[in-house]
Structures are given as C-alpha cells and as structure tokens.
C-alpha cells in the first residue's frame, strides 16, 4: 500500500435506523485506504453497501462509528465550514446523469455553484473558470455548451458535465459511483479514458464504485470486493481477477461475461443479512465451501499474501487454500 495516503477509513460503520424495524448496517467496520493518484475500485452487488461507503467517504453521510481521515485531518464528524472545506477536496460523481442535473438550469449554472460556494470564485471569475472546466472534460466548443440545458445534452455529455462539476472545487479525491453504467457502450470507454487522463493531470485519487469487474480491472489499481456490508477481498486489480481468493469473488467472477465459466459456484441465492445482530460470515449461506465456524464467527480481513487480503476462514490458521 502507499505511504502517501489521501483518504483512510478505519473501522467505519454506517448504521441506518428505521422506524419499528431493526436497524440496517450498510457498512460494518470497513477499513480502506486510497493513496495519491490511486484508483481503488469497490465492487459488489446492489445492497452490498458500496454506495453507502462512497457517500460516507465524501461525508454526505456521517459514520456511526469508526474514523475517517483525509490526509492528516480527522473528518469523521466535522460540520459547517470545515465540512464545506472538505467537500471542496472530496467530490462525488453520481450514477445517473439524467437525475443528477437540474433540468431548469444551464450547464454554466451547475458549474458556477461549486466554483463560487466551494472555492469562493467571484461571479465574474466563474465565467472563465466554467469554460476552462468544460474544455477539460472535452465539451468543446465550450461557449456553445455553457448555455445548454441538460435536456439538450446526450447521456455522455451530461456525465461530462457531472465530472466537470465534481472538478470545480479542485478536489484531491473523487468518488465515482457507477459513472458509466447508465451510458451506452460506445460512450463508456470515452468517459473511462477521460477519468484516467484527469487523474494523470490533476493527481486525483478515485474510489470507483461499480458492479462490473471488467471495468474495475481496467480502471483501478486495486479492487476491494464488498459483500454484505463488509470488504471480503482486496488486492491489486489483476490479482483479484486472476487469482481470486474469497468464494464470493470467485462467484462474481464466474458470473461475469468473459470469464469462460458457466456453472455458478453457489449453493443458493439469498440476499445477505444486514441486521446488526448478524453473526458469522455474510456469505456463509451461499458459500459452497462453508464450514461450521463460518456460521458463528466472522472472519477478519487478513493478508493471505503480501498485498492480498481476504476475509475467509479458508485462509486462517495456516489452512491450505481450498479449491
């Protein structure tokens, strides 16, 4: 891992309370760090807690427990001015470019607001800055796009506006929550390569949230696989795809197009238990290699080899790797 970490979540837990119903723990003691100019992909199915984690890392959600560090600053519970300052450093790109832009406002309005609110740019200065941002995300000629409304733009162009908006505060860290899954295939590549080149130019750190292992492997340096509110495996992107350790990662991989596998290694398809009272491994009910202890004890995320961590009893106590 890197010494020059930008964001570090330590045992971060996010708990949602519900009326007359048991609480939901959407992230359970998650530890994750992202280095400078590093992309970490958070991969998992819907309901695994990956979006919740993303929102907590940019402090749109307040963690229930644990600590969130941005460089040397503890940002777990900050509010008011300091939270606003953090928001200029940590930004979010949403999945749905059709829902995340206000249909009543122009592109310029969307970009001017973060410029003025987060960076204190004057209204006059914002005009120039808007054009600059549009050029950076490839919406040229910029003077034409400045005055357009969201409905006049295609999905790919809208997502570029959303990216420009995220860049307006000059962030160091950007959470991209499924930024291409609503786009057409031929446009996805352009957005992914845009994210790559922006990372290079602006020294950005990314948390790339996706359900698609192939694009995670393409964009990310490391992949963290999330299941049932916990990270079950984390390693270099290539390692996760080529030598997956956790049974859930293997299932996910087998289900992905291009893996060459047909049979799915699972015993039944149940959604994981997200209640606070859960015991044992969240994947135990579906796991073909389940052992007795998996149902009572929760495996910790430990290094099974340098830089490759998995939370699975198959790798505890020096037990051999099961296949």
């Amino acid at each position: 891992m890197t010494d020059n970490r930008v964001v570090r979540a330590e045992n971060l837990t996010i708990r949602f309370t519900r009326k007359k119903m048991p609480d939901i723990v959407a992230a359970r003691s998650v530890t994750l760090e992202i280095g400078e100019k590093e992309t970490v992909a958070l991969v998992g199915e819907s309901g695994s807690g990956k979006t919740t984690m993303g929102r907590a890392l940019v402090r749109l959600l307040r963690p229930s427990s644990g600590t969130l560090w941005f460089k040397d600053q503890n940002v777990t519970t900050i509010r008011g001015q300091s939270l606003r300052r953090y928001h200029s450093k940590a930004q979010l790109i949403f999945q749905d470019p059709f829902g995340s832009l206000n249909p009543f406002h122009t592109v310029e309005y969307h970009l001017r607001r973060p410029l003025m609110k987060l960076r204190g740019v004057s209204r006059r200065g914002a005009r120039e800055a808007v054009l600059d941002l549009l050029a950076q995300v490839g919406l040229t000629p910029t003077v034409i796009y400045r005055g357009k409304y969201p409905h006049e733009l295609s999905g790919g162009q809208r997502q570029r506006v959303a990216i420009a908006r995220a860049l307006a505060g000059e962030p160091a860290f950007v959470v991209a929550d499924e930024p291409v899954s609503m786009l057409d295939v031929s446009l996805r590549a352009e957005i992914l390569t845009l994210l790559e080149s922006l990372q290079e130019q602006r020294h950005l750190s990314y948390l790339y949230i996706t359900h698609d292992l192939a694009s995670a492997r393409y964009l990310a340096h490391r992949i963290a696989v999330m299941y049932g509110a916990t990270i079950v495996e984390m390693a270099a992107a290539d390692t996760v795809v080529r030598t997956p350790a956790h049974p859930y990662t293997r299932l996910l991989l087998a289900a992905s197009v291009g893996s060459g596998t047909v049979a799915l290694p699972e015993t039944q398809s149940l959604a994981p238990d997200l209640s606070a009272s859960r015991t044992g491994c969240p994947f135990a009910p579906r796991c073909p290699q389940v052992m007795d202890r998996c149902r009572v004890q929760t495996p910790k995320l430990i290094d099974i080899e340098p830089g490759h961590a998995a939370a699975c009893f198959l790798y505890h106590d020096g037990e051999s790797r099961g296949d």
Partner: protein
Amino acid sequence: MTAALSIEHLNVSYRTPRGLVSILKDISLTLYHDEILGVVGESGSGKSTLAQAIMRLLKPNTAKVSGRVMIGSKDLYALSTKELRALRWKDVAMVFQSSMNALNPVISIQAHFFDTLLAHRPHLTSKEVEQRTHYLLQQVRLNPEIARNYPHELSGGMRQRVAIALALALDPEILIMDEPTTALDVVVQRSILNEIAALQRERHLSVVLISHDFSLVSSLAHRMAIMYAGQLMEITESSGDDPTSVRHHPYTEGLIAAIPQLMGDQVRIQGIPGEPPNIADLVTGCPFNDRCPKRLDLCKSTPLPVLSAKTFIRCHAMGDREEAHNDG
C-alpha cells in the same frame, strides 16, 4: 434449418407533431428454429421498437408499419385482431424490459398464471392451472410455493423468473426477450441467462434476445444482429467469448474495442468518437459513416444494400455485397 419467424422489409415510423420519423428502415431478418438470435444496439437504435413490431404491439395511431412479419405461413400484419389475439403468447411470447415491474402488484403470482392460461385455454380446471403453474415455476428453478406470494414479496431476480415462466406458459415456439436481465445483479443475471440457454436447448425454442450488452449476448447467442440508427448493420455468427474470432462491421469492431475485457492482456480501451446520429435526420448513405474509421467517399450518399442472407455485413468499405457472407 427452417425459419421460425421471418421479417421482410419491415419499416416503422413514429407519428410525431413534426411528421413521420422513420425508426426502422428496411429490416429483413430470419429467426431459425432452435436458435438464439441476439439483437444488439445502443439506446435509440430501434431494438425495442423491433421487438414491439414483431409482436404487432405498436398502435396504428402512433406508428406506421409496413412490411411483413411471417410466422409459418401467417403474416402477423394481415391477421384480424381476433386471430392475432389467439396467436400472441401461444406462438410468440415476450419477456419485456423490466418485466419484473410488469407483474400486477395486487394479485398473487398464481393469479397471473390463471389470467394467462385461462385467456387461451378456458376449458382448464383450477386444479390443472395450479399443476401447470407448479411445473412452470420449477422450470425456471423457483420454489413452486411462491405461487401464493405477491410480486412485492419476491426479489428482482425471482420476479424476472416469474415473467419468464409466464412467457413459457402456453408452450410458445418463439420467445422475444427485450433486455431480460438488464436491471439485475451480475450473479443473478448470469444464473437467469444460464436458465434461458438451458430452456432453449430443452424445448428447442427460437429466441430473439435483445440487449445493449454486446459481450453478454455474444456469450449466449448463436447469431448476432447489430443495429445502428434503425438499420441492421450485420448479422454474424456469434463469436462467443473471443470477439476477435469473427470478421465484423466497423461499428461492431468499435463496440468491441470499447469494452474492457475481463481476462486477457488488453491494454487500452477505445471509445467510438462522436455520438449516435439523430434518427430524424440521417444521410442517405451509411448512418455510421461520420464515426467510421474506414469510411470511403461513397459511404455518405450511397445507401447500404439490403441483405437478408443468414449472415452478412452491410459495409461499403468491406467490399461489395457478393463478398459479404451472402451464403444464404
């Protein structure tokens, strides 16, 4: 191979306040018995319109349709409403995009099967319908107990399986599936696709599988039809997991280069420059010409030849029509 369904010179235009907008242009294609034909296209390419046109679901006051859709010796567009009603679902059934939301929330799963089965086979007894429901739910690997449940009590994947079971209710030979797994998680998606492949083999169904996801369709279909801006660009044998094993249209090649591969050592992905054209103002030539790396001078103005062989590629730059796999 005999044809299960053949589409001949199908044209669809939508009626808009600014006049007719042509959506599907001269589509001719044949679905053979016992095959999965994948139809791939981006949003706005007309693939869902194609599915609706095949089922004659487009209303005459919103869309103008010409051409023929033949099932056996019957032209769907020449049938009376009554004949059409008898044929739909019995001969051709459809699984809609997000059909998991198409289930009626206020009636049980069992009641859906009563509706479908009794509409076509009114003589069935309650007992027979229940037995049939039991059998169908087992076919899509659901616990038959869930027949008593209501749609909201089931997960998205389970509802999608119910929708597939409903489509199979009357033993159709032809199944049209419009993005059957798009809203589902990767693992659920794969298990449903495995199910579809197994059912197709078992029942020798003829399936049209419509999706925006090239690699997904490629892993399942026998042949692939690629649509762009309302036109059929190619039909090729499916290349399975190795998309480079088959010669493709430049647009399809662009699509393949844009998809990150899970395995393999691909270093870069590359998008297709530009945006899909506005379907309301297209050039007379190839609709892909302005984004195409292989374009020739004639591409912009020379219409693409209409081909209807088993496999073909419609591209001026890839040689004339004889050279395209026009092998019938």
